[in-house]
């Protein structure tokens, strides 16, 4: 498959662009005159991406459409929901103060990298795109803050009761043939010196059928996707998905490189959601934590700081807040939390007990609770 010459390579590139162009997209017409961007609240210099987003009046995010909990188009209601969607809405709120200022682009079979390069979308938040060394090496694109940690693991039948590595000895494990997941599986069990029988199926559907028919007691996949599968089964309780994972995959926003302001807005919105959770600020209580302002009374700054503490004050207040450093309103996180909630609320909404897909938070807990979810300082 090696491409021989630059000319052929260019031809292929042009073909690709042509094919992509044939897919209806919501990209801006390049020939259309771009209206002057509105000033940011702070008057800070506006970077290229923010400028185009401001003139469009909304951001465009590409998300999955078939992964319940992450990015899912409900075929009955037409509603698109999931963590990726909420992150997109949070970023839209940071910029416009309105979670509705987000256009959701559903990923089908397009290459997410080309969607970004062509300017068709501003951000990709997909479970299928993982931060890797080779990904970072792509000079045109950049990965942002980790929004969700995932990884490969096992689903087992309750009957088999396999929940430790030792018990995998001699088990029959189903996987999809010639996939990265299958290679990961073989490598991991070799490394652990566990003997097993591999039942290799041509596709995910066949793997699922084989598993349900009892041809294997174990199947392997991403933890979140195995949970999705399990909960769609007739008898979810008869199956179990391991908490422990043996590969590392994370949901990280992907965007065009080189526009530091754009990358800061995306990442500090995610960090803001995490920081809010760590401070106990929720969509329910955020209004009580604001500085009191009525037509004839403004709470003194020192009284306010005394009441809520310096961290919450710096995070939420319009005059001592620091959002202007990012080219946003000083108190931009207030609307984000009001309209979308904090990080924990987003997870709870989609993966929690009341969500469509209950998955234990485990490593997606805050660092305070033994997880990996961490935000740098809001100073």
């Amino acid at each position, binding site marked *: *498959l*090696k*491409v021989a010459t630059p000319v052929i390579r260019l031809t*292929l*590139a042009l*073909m*690709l662009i042509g*094919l992509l162009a*044939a897919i209806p997209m919501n990209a801006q017409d390049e020939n259309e005159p771009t209206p002057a961007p509105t000033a940011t609240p702070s008057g800070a210099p506006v970077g290229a991406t923010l400028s185009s987003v401001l003139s469009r009046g909304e951001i465009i995010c590409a998300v999955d459409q078939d992964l319940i909990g992450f990015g899912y188009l409900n075929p009955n209601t037409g509603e698109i929901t999931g963590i990726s969607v909420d992150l997109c809405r949070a970023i839209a709120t940071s910029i416009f103060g309105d979670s509705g200022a987000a256009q959701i682009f559903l990923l089908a*079979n*397009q290459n997410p*990298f*080309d969607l*970004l*390069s062509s300017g068709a979308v501003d951000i990709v938040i997909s*479970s*299928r*795109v*993982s931060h*890797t*060394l*080779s*990904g*970072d*090496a*792509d*000079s*045109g694109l950049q990965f942002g803050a980790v929004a969700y940690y995932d*990884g*490969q693991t096992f689903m087992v039948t309750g009957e088999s009761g396999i929940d430790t590595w030792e018990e995998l000895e001699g088990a029959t494990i189903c996987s999809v043939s*010639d*996939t*990265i*997941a*299958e*290679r*990961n599986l073989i*490598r991991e069990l070799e490394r652990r010196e566990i003997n097993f029988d591999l039942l290799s199926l*041509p*596709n*995910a559907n066949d793997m699922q059928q084989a598993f349900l028919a009892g041809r294997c007691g174990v199947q392997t*996949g*991403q933890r979140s996707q195995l949970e999705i599968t399990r909960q769609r089964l007739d008898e979810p309780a008869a199956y179990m998905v391991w908490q422990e994972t043996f*590969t*590392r*995959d994370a949901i990280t926003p992907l965007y065009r490189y080189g526009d*530091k302001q754009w990358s*800061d807005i995306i990442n500090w919105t995610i960090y803001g959601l995490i920081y809010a959770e760590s401070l106990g600020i929720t969509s329910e209580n955020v209004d009580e934590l604001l500085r009191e302002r009525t037509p004839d009374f403004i709470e003194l700054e020192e009284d306010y700081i005394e009441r809520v*503490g*310096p961290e919450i004050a710096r995070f939420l207040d319009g005059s001592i807040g*620091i959002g202007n450093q*990012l*080219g946003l309103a000083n108190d931009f996180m207030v609307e984000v939390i009001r309209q979308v909630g904090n990080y924990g609320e987003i997870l709870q909404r989609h993966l929690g007990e009341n969500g469509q897909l209950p998955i234990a938070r485990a490593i997606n807990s805050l*660092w305070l609770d033994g997880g*990996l979810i*961490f935000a*740098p*300082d*809001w*100073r």
Partner: protein
Amino acid sequence: MSDHVHYAAITGEKETMLKRSLVLMPFVLIVAVVVTLGFTSAGAQDAEVGPITQRIIDRGELICGANGAGLAGFAVVNDAGEWEGFDVDICRAVAAAVLGDANAVDFRPLNADQRQAAIQTGEIDIMSRNTTWTVSRDATWGATFAPTTFYDGQGIMVKADSGVTDLAGLEGGSICVQSGTTTELNITDALNQGGVDAELQTFADATATWEGYLSGRCDGFTTDISGLVAYQATAEDPGAHVILDLTLSKEPLGPLSPQSDPQFADIVRWTVYGLFQAEEYGITSENIDEFLASEDPGIQRFLGQGENAAGSYFGISNDFMVNVIRQVGNYGEIFDRNLGPNTPFKLERGLNALWTDGGLLYSPPFR
């Protein structure tokens, strides 16, 4: 134009689809074309380097902004005139990655106020100087922050012979703290939350606080852990004091580089990740030669052995991590050498443990 396809591990259907290259459905063709393009660069050995990497190579030296005042355990000039410490080793690791030589570093002493200008003017290539990653620095310094290398935070020091091991052990005792600081607020909060009744002795400046503790006016002394380490080093008998294994606030410290060269920022980022990953694989400066022959494809890729692209993605030596690990060691070795059990500080890993050991150090996959 993207040159690579990067899908998460479980992309079984997609990968299988690629095999059926004769299927005439447009989307399959698109994916096939992208993969074709990707393959041409996957093994490329000579990606163009960015301006900062280029000038480091031309000069044969990495210019590293370091703590000029000296910070025990992190950056000090020893009796032989050599820089040493945790932050210093991070710069040495990057020099080993880019130049293959951990000693090819020109350390530039910086005080706290000089940091922003040094990064903005490009006077330095990298800064590794106990700098907290904050929103305002990220947005206004013209810098890209690398992954956090040291999760600092407010800690508590007690006398080793007191037998105190946690906050509750200070019940009925007293703690020396500088007045009017967030440090004072944090300790007040922590005592309230933990229901611990201890008296706070406040002092106007940092040195007076430390001397108050040394003179026995309090049972405990609180400030940032990196500060506790520095004070401990100045004590007559450093071993007479211990830093408790707890963190009352967070201060993520890490290296940063000018945002004008995102590719160099990637080199710094993946060198730091590589230090974490090496520890996770158990690869050390001592045993690395055994791993060079490893048949584990993950380790082969990580060490840039065989056909696998690693450093070449960034225009540096494909086996850059071999140089880093051989000359500087993995993260755990760096931590232990400067702050660990064989140093006067005997710092616990705490949040600075690998994610697999309950800490926060996590590397994305090297693939």
